[in-house]
């Protein structure tokens, strides 16, 4: 098949909805929540116009969205939903259940601050609350990545050695409502890439009845959790293969992380999501001024790509981690993960923790520049959590 791409300016929500149209899942159950709403609206339009043969369940809550998707996936269908913030929090109980049933569900999550106080704008507190739920978690920088990783996630989720649900996190409003050029691949190419779901133990196979979700007491629960841990480890092994196939098919390269001007960089900034674009801009500026700086974008947050991070950050002078969420009474989530990875490297860099952008607060080049300057000037104190763009 020839790779003829269509380049269009779209919002992240439209990009994701378009990926869902091309994937054409059997069942989509969803509830509207800002800023995810346009995703389900676009998709509902595809269903209403007969563009897709997906059965849509307009559920009465996110809790039921995840519950229905679990039922549909267990029945043998390819099932998807999408959510944000408090919707994700309302799903929380069933998010864990979906992972423990090893159901290959793909869910775009449009990141938004968790209440309270209520706030509809972007931060990563919703996704971080689910980091130990057993889902694979991607974070994307651009609308192109939101589109690409939604497609790629289907293959990873459904891989026989993985069989785990995947969240594709995209920044609320910044990406979901921000317009960017996106290259859409031909429908047939996407359909061929995702292929057909091979359901395992489907409920609709009445000739081979199985019991899903039995009572699992102390004599087996631990072993089942161990299997989930192994599935996550497998996800790390399998991901590069699928990413390679994705690159061969669509021409775009994905990996656990994306290094930016890192080869000779002495000072490295690590972050998730759309802020990486601003970081790259500042890296370019500082490079022009002669500073050896670089950036490391984390695409895959769960399973956490520890070895890759260790390899890339070992021996740097300093590492600055930007977090768009906090952990009350402890270190910010990404900082904690990076710091713990660096404990094991031979030459540990200086570390800096910067929290920014809570509740949608703007992150500007000058903020990022300030954090880089702290690193360049040796003005970092490990374990001192600093803030960017906060009125003190």
């Amino acid at each position, binding site marked *: 098949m020839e790779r003829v791409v269509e380049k269009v300016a779209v919002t992240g929500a439209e990009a994701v909805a378009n990926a869902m149209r091309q994937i054409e899942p059997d069942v989509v159950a969803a509830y509207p929540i800002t800023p995810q709403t346009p995703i389900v609206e676009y998709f509902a339009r595809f269903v209403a116009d007969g563009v897709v043969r997906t059965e849509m*369940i307009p559920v009465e809550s996110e809790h039921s969205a995840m519950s*229905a998707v679990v039922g549909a996936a267990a029945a043998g269908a390819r099932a998807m939903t999408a959510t944000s913030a408090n919707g994700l929090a309302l799903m929380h109980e069933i998010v864990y259940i979906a992972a423990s049933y090893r159901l290959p569900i793909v869910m775009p999550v449009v990141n938004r601050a968790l209440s309270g106080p209520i706030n509809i704008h972007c931060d990563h507190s919703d996704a971080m609350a689910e980091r130990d739920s057993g889902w694979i978690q991607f974070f994307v920088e651009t609308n192109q990545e939101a589109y690409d990783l939604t497609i790629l996630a289907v293959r990873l989720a459904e891989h026989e050695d993985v069989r785990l649900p995947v969240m594709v996190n995209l920044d609320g409003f910044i990406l979901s409502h921000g317009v960017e050029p996106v290259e859409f691949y031909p429908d047939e190419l996407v359909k061929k890439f995702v292929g057909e779901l091979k359901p395992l133990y489907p409920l*609709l196979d009445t000739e081979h*009845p199985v019991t899903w*979700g039995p009572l699992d007491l102390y004599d087996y629960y631990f072993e089942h959790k161990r299997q989930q841990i192994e599935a996550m480890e497998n996800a790390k092994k399998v991901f590069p293969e699928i990413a390679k196939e994705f690159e061969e098919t669509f021409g775009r390269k994905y990996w656990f992380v994306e290094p930016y001007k890192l080869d000779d960089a002495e000072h490295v900034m690590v972050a998730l999501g759309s802020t990486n674009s601003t970081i790259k801009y500042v890296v370019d500026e500082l490079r022009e001024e002669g500073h050896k700086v670089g950036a490391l974008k984390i695409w895959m947050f769960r399973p956490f790509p520890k070895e890759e991070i260790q390899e890339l950050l070992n021996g740097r002078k300093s590492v600055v981690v930007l977090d768009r969420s906090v952990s009350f009474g402890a270190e910010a989530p990404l900082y904690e993960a990076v710091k713990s990875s660096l404990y094991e490297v031979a030459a540990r860099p200086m570390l800096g923790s910067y929290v920014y952008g809570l509740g949608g607060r703007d992150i500007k080049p000058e903020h990022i520049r300030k954090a880089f300057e702290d690193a360049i000037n040796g003005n970092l104190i490990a374990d001192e959590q600093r803030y960017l763009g906060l009125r003190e």
Partner: protein
Amino acid sequence: MPVNIKQLAQEFDKKEIGITQGHRLCPGCGAPITVKFVMMVARHLGYEPVVGLATGCLEVSTTIYPYTAWSVPYIHNAFENVAATMSGVETAYRSLKNKGKIPEDKKYAFIAFGGDGGTYDIGLQSLSGMVERGHKVLYVLYDNEGYMNTGNQRSGSTPPGSDTTTAPVGKKLPGKVQLKKNIVEIVAAHENVYAATASLSDPMDFFTKVEKALNFDGPSFLAVFSPCVRFWRVSEDKTVEISKLAVETKYWPLYEVERGVYRVTRKPRQFKPVEEFIKAQGRFRKLLSRPDANEIIAELQEYLDRRWERLLALEEATKDKPIR
């Protein structure tokens, strides 16, 4: 020809019902009888049951890993979402059938079982959503009037005066003061639904309602009076007897509502006072020792009389007037 017991007994002498012996429910529990009645009728009519369960006694006692008492496809998700889960299963079926991914000739029966906690209370929203959206699922409530799985706590279905651990009959308070929530009315108010009550003491009526529910073109709901011998403090051979008393005292009237049309399916010529139902169970023993016992029982009797009159009036008023 309606299904009868003899027919079913002969048929299932050699054929699996779908739930086998070896589960760990208490002797005398109403839940497994309810399940067997529903499953036998479904299989007798040629349906392939796919079953969903809410967390509760029935779930924890039939699927202790690595064992399962179910020989039909089964899913348990959580306490409050069996209706949403089965909405997903049923939708998956329609989607896969439309796409030609599964054979068209199979006649599935999607059946959800839930106790009163998962139905009247925490699961009410998900049940309402399922009925409103019109999923073709039969929801079967086994109503034992309390959270029995966690040890006899009050539910929205617990009657006044019943002694439970979270609304105990004490020196000051007479146990739960509120009446049972009227779940059948709540479900029937969704209008495009078949909703009915059933009792283990009236199997023929029960079977007919399961048949109607399964053949109904849309969601259906069956509320089954399901004694918990353990916390109702009755001996384990009294399940059917207590169920019979519930029907004969107007406590559990047998009726159905099909798209707004009411029909009382059993009209005893003579009713017994509700006091007989109360006195037959240990859970009301503490109530009976209170000085205001007669008052509380009289209030309950008055409510039951009025509800019965209202049911008959609704039957008359809605005759041949389906709402859709």
